[in-house]
């Protein structure tokens, strides 16, 4: 871009970019483990954490009803120590993750803008982490307020962000350390 290429950067800039990419990779890995332990990685697990709580009694069928009672077994109560994300927590999670992930996507994109790939490919890859973030957080809200089945979007969004990061990191690291500069 404008004559700048990752492969032509001075050593200090290459080290800076490399350590940034490695650091974000480690952070993404930690976030993946955190998501898998606190919530789960299947659409069903995401749905269980995000979807609105539905009544277990006949109140579900009769919306005007003020109370309902039903016998249950202990098996009907969740035995998993899972986090149930209620609306205030969803608001908090959304604002921190939208700021945080968008800034990370921006910084990743900033490095990738100087990669030596075709403009169309660059445009597509640079958009992936942004699109993934919006799909991820948007999916959380849609799961909660539109349909629990949309929990699939949360998984898809997280995967898209990860794919974007992986492509940017691999191509950028290749450019930084392995690509040979062509002499004009």
């Amino acid at each position: 871009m404008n004559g700048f290429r990752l492969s032509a950067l001075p050593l200090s800039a290459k080290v800076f970019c490399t350590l940034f990419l490695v650091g974000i990779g480690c952070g993404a890995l930690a976030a993946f483990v955190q998501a898998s332990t606190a919530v789960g990685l299947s659409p069903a697990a995401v749905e269980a954490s995000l979807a609105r709580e539905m009544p277990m009694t006949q109140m579900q069928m009769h919306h005007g009803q003020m109370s309902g009672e039903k016998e249950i077994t202990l098996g009907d109560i969740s035995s998993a120590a899972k986090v149930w994300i209620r609306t205030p927590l969803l608001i908090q999670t959304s604002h921190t993750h939208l700021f945080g992930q968008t800034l990370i996507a921006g910084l990743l994109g900033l490095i990738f803008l100087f990669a030596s790939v075709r403009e169309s490919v660059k445009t597509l890859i640079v958009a992936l982490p942004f699109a993934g973030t919006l799909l991820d957080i948007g999916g959380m809200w849609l799961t909660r307020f539109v349909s629990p089945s949309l929990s699939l979007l949360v998984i898809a969004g997280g995967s898209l962000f990860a794919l974007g990061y992986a492509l940017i990191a691999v191509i950028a690291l290749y450019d930084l350390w392995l690509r040979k500069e062509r002499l004009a």
Partner: protein
Amino acid sequence: MKALCPVIAAALVGLCVVAPAWAHITPPVVLVSDRDAVVSLLAGARRFFVREVRLTAAEKQTIRQATAWNPEDDFYRFYIGRDDQGRVVAATVFLTEFTIHGPVRVAAALGPDGKVKGATVVELTEETYPWIKPLLDRNFTRDYVGRDARGTFAVSAGGGDSMAQFYGEVVASLIRRAAALYEIAVIKRGDAA
């Protein structure tokens, strides 16, 4: 290299902004599953029921006046334990307060007379856990056993630890809300038996 300076500066500014954005809320710490909380708080029960209640506007107003808490959920769920004869042993309800450091979730058990039979902290966050741990180690929720919604739910964290005091009060307030909720939405409706 000179022309790259603004780009690097922008990157550094971005990094500085990311850190505080992520520092807002630490990850959740779930101390006990819902099932384990219900089993321990309804000890002695042979059969289990869920009772779900929607509050009327008047009931919400009564609770607001009694506890300064605004009950906004669509419905509240009590897990009720009964003995072999069908008598209520206790009812457990889960309530959450959303603090600036994240959610604090408590399970509180109420007897058929509306008095607290026990309570346990179910979920908090990595940041709040060390603050409240000294109180948990002391099993401070035991202090509220036998109190009803009109009782005092004071906390003595000791040692002048203001965060422990604050979060102890959050937990105590949740237990009081549970007592008020049970009294208004179950006992006063004549559904406690």
